[in-house]
């Protein structure tokens, strides 16, 4: 690989979106106005082009040379050591993530050009939206490109900030403002653990650079050569997992993601489905050396993933807001990925991340298209039968749904199947949970599809429903191609080399610890190879068929369920009362403590501050008296000053 080319590409990938953000933010309101999207398209487009170049370089690299650390510069160099080095790490995982991030971002930006308009007129804050989007792309690229934990943390926090800004994009809407605040605060909990984990890494190994740290971890020693106790590694891994739980919305920190749907739909597609929420999975994969060195931590990872997947899927069964269903589905799919990483199949997790980016972005953008057509209404109870009204949205949405449901031969099918396979191998319990989740996924996905697009045509009053324009449909179509075919990249039978491509990243970490599935010398049977595929495919088809039977011919089923299982339904409808639990257990006490603190602050602290500033104020007053404006006084002070200095010099 030519390092210079990679360095240049890396810099462009980072700076082009940043420059776009600055230009859009600075010139948007006055100069660019309704044309601001061009700036962001240009910036993200350049980043995408360079990502393709980087990917190409990495693919073409000879075996064993597909990884490069590229130092850019030292910040505040000191005589002893660099405090903080800006360096990029480019390897197959990074190049793949870059491709996903910039590619989906480019499509979303194109889509937003029309989505953020109302009857052709840009919405209020149009330029702000595009500036934030570009800033997000920069942050996310910094996160995946960074070659040390500081850059990772920087990108981590920056994407959180962009997420906050974009969830609260309609800040005059109280629900949006509250959702943004919630997302920020919940993430703070996770990030606190994440920050502690990074600090512990630094304290233990004395370095924050990936290569150095991972090398030491794999050898089990610190920089001085002392053995690091395995409990320390486990602690580090669990603290990092805290961060992943926050960012990737895993239990128990999942509560922010459904509320985050208050943001504009393109934001949900890009940030809260395809890219930012997968940062946690990326981080676990990147820190494979740390995680796979601790069996305890890996068990925790796998259990959290499996439970989250199942838990979120059950909630999605009864929701009626299309975007919320998709949000719970995202949590559930992220659970799959975490589960995959937890059973030492990080390559499968990343594979699912890859396919998920296509079909989930597609679904969110499709839901956005529906919402756009329905005049901002997204509740399934208020519309239905949109098949003929929105033909292209309908077609692409169904493709995305088939992929999500794991319908055979669609992309989600292959990637999900791999994770279930590895989960079953690792532990039957986890495997069965994953299988049940797969069935639920297929069911709730098609419940949504049938309610929205089948049946009698119902459109909210006063809404002129219309199919979206080319700016919105083109990304949908491109993504649906990906949703169908992306999965084949991981299928050996058709020449897909996804796992081989990623193998160098994981060969010494996850792959080295993976449970041996094939005993050497024993040919895998047909069942080993295809049995699970048949089972999970059948499950998906059956669940879809069930959804059809229950929701399409006659709609008596929901009422029956509500009536017969009132309590279960209510529990699911209220998302297992997690929000209420947090509210009673954490938020209310925190509020009360906050009121006490405000009281203390107003009276005790302010009083102390007043006292503390009394001295400077007094001195300031005396300085003013000294500066009276009379030259004689100045002269006297000056001479006195010289005298004092001389006394000091001769006395000491």
């Amino acid at each position: 690989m030519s390092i210079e080319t990679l360095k240049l590409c890396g810099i462009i990938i980072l700076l082009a979106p940043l420059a776009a953000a600055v230009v859009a933010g600075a010139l948007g309101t006055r100069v660019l106005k309704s044309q601001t999207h061009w700036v962001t398209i240009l910036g993200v487009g350049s980043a995408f082009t360079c990502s393709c170049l980087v990917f190409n370089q990495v693919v073409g690299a000879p075996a064993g040379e597909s990884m490069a650390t590229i130092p850019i510069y030292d910040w505040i160099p000191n005589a002893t050591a660099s405090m903080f080095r800006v360096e990029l790490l480019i390897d197959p995982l990074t190049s793949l993530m870059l491709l996903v991030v910039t590619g989906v971002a480019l499509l979303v930006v194109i889509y937003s050009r029309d989505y953020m308009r109302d009857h052709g007129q840009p919405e209020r804050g149009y330029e702000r939206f595009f500036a934030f989007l570009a800033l997000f792309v920069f942050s996310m690229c910094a996160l995946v490109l960074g070659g040390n934990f500081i850059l990772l943390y920087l990108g981590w926090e920056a994407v959180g900030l962009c997420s906050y800004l974009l969830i609260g994009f309609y800040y005059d809407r109280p629900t949006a403002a509250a959702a943004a605040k919630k997302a920020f605060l919940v993430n703070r909990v996770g990030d606190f653990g994440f920050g502690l984990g990074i600090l512990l890494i630094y304290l233990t190994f004395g370095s924050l650079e990936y290569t150095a740290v991972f090398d030491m971890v794999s050898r089990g020693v610190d920089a001085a050569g002392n053995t690091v106790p395995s409990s320390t590694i486990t602690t580090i891994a669990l603290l990092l997992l805290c961060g992943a739980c926050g960012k990737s919305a895993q239990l128990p920190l999942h509560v922010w993601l459904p509320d985050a749907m208050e943001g504009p739909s393109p934001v949900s597609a890009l940030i809260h489905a395809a890219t930012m929420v997968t940062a946690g999975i990326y981080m676990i994969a990147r820190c494979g050396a740390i995680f796979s060195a601790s069996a305890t931590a890996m068990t925790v990872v796998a259990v959290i993933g499996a439970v989250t997947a199942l838990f979120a899927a059950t909630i999605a069964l009864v929701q009626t807001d299309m975007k919320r269903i998709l949000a719970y589905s995202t949590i559930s799919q992220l659970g799959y990925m975490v589960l995959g990483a937890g059973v030492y199949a990080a390559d499968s997790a990343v594979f699912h991340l890859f396919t998920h980016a296509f079909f989930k972005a597609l679904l969110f953008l499709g839901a956005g298209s529906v919402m756009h057509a329905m005049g901002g209404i997204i509740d399934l109870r208020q519309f239905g039968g949109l098949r003929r009204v929105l033909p292209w949205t309908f077609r692409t949405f169904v493709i995305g749904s088939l992929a999500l449901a794991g319908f055979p031969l669609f992309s989600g099918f292959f990637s999900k199947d791999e994770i279930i396979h590895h989960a079953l191998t690792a532990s039957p319990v986890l495997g069965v949970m994953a299988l049940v989740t797969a069935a639920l996924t297929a069911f709730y996905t098609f419940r949504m599809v049938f309610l929205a697009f089948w049946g009698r045509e119902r459109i909210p009053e006063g809404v002129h429903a219309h199919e979206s324009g080319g700016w919105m449909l083109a990304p949908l179509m491109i993504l649906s191609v990906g949703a169908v075919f992306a999965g084949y990249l991981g299928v050996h039978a058709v020449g897909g080399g996804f796992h081989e491509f990623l193998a160098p990243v994981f060969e010494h970490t996850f792959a080295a610890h993976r449970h041996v599935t094939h005993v050497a010398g024993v040919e895998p049977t047909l069942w080993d190879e295809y049995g699970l595929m048949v089972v999970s495919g059948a499950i998906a088809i059956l669940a879809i068929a069930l959804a059809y039977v229950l929701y399409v011919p006659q709609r008596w089923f929901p009422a029956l369920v509500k009536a017969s299982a009132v309590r279960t339904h209510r529990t699911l409808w209220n998302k297992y009362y997690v929000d209420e639990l947090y509210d009673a257990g954490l938020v209310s006490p925190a509020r009360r403590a906050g009121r006490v603190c405000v009281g203390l602050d107003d009276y005790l602290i302010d009083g102390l501050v007043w006292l503390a500033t009394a001295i400077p104020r007094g001195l300031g007053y005396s300085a003013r008296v000294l500066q009276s404006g009379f030259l004689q006084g100045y002269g006297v002070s000056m001479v006195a000053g010289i005298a004092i200095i001389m006394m000091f010099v001769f006395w000491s």
Partner: protein
Amino acid sequence: MALLGQTDLWAGIDVGEHLFLFSPMIVLVCTMLAVVACPIILGRGPRSIATVVWLGLGITLFMTFRVAGAVADGGVSGLSTQPGGMLIADNLSVGFQFLLLAFLAGVMLMWWMGSSATERNAPEFFILLLGSALGMVLMVSTTNLLMIVMAIELASLPSYAIVGFEKRNRVAAEASLKYMIFGAVCAAIMLYGASLLYGLVGSLDMAVIASYTIDNLSLGPNRVLLAVGLLCFLVGIAFKVSAVPFHFWCPDAFEGARIEVTTWLSVVSKGAGLLLLARLVTVFCAGGGADANPALSITFLTPLAWTIGIIAAVTCTVGNFAAYKQRSVKRMLAYSSIAHAGYMMMATAVFIHPSISGSTAGITALLTYVVIYLLMNLGAFGVTAMVVWDTGSDKIEAFTGLMRRSPWLAVPMVACLMSLVGMPPFAGFIGKWWILVALGRLQNTATSSGMFSLSTLGWLLMIVAVVNTFISLYYYLRIVVQMMFRDDGQRTVRTPIVGLAMVNGCAVALFALLIFAQPLKRTAERFTRNMYTASVEQDGKHKTLASAIQRGTP
């Protein structure tokens, strides 16, 4: 010992080479002459005068670039038959010339936006401005007491006049008069000190004085005479730097003068004074390393370091406290500039001790800080200027709601103020950080210990600097609060586009310099490397090329 007039001035001097090395100064003089001639040929219009000045500055810049190449590998002193030479051209003086030219361009822009429309006396204004600029360039380019006195006077006299340039303005006239009287007193004290030193040592060259000091440590009464002479001489520099208690002229002059003049005086005249001090201290120490001469360190260098350090600490503290209650932003920035002179002066106390590792850390930190300080002050004064021009008031109330009224003014103002505080997203942080690092390097050597040791001084100054940063937060934030959280519905500020570009450029540069801190430090190191340090030859033979001491970072 002969003074200038009594010897053959040009004997043994490579005149051509030396004239080339000092060509930037010569071009500045020629520009002043051109400005004098311009009214006769082209008329007194501001436009023609400004064109001539821009042209002159361009040629000066060009010549400075050429000189920079010539002196990169070692300083040269020249234009004298005396040891040490009258003028010095080395990396430091060239670096300061670059800074001065950049800042002069900024001040010219401000003048063009604010005053050129009503300017009736453009030629006089520019003669004074360029005159003081020349004086400041000379200040950084010499170690000869006579030249220093002359340079300081050359920098000061036009400054007095330019402060009172608005003849009909009572405040300006009063400020100018005060400034002048105060300056005259300080000049007198300085000359007194210089004459004492000359009487004692028989030379005006700082290097000779330094070597005399080493040779005659047990002078008895003469030691007192030497100290008094040095301290009195220091007063002149302290006046330029506006160190407490020689700072009284500063707030009045800054408030009375036009805002572009205030900007000019706030940065460059202080920068020149500080770099002069730094140079003198370097030369004083280079005469004999402290390790080679422990007695010198104990009897002389440590007390001198403490003197400078304590003046710095007091300056910093007084400046910050006095800024507390100011209602006028201009006056507040004047006090802020006193406080910043204190921070920068701390860096000159650092490398008093050349044997200590990292002795260049001090001067590098100083030069970096001057660069950053230049940007923050140009930005802050630029915004203040535009508010003053439009609203006619420099009171803090004129800034109310500026964030809504003119975000393109308010944002750079916030950036510059935060940078002045030393807050991390801006370069002011890094400047202060390096000064603190340099202070931390003041270690105890075997030769200096006890209560008044250098390491005690380093810690003391560090604490003072940090506490002062907290104090300063209050009055800088007051403006920020006034701009962002108060609003009384005043109208938008009308601003020239060039001014907006200037202040926003400053803000962006402050941000960029934090990110690209390393190139900044490299540049500062480049301009403090190979500083001219006279190695004194006692026999008094004339010497044009001084030994250049390689000063790399440890």
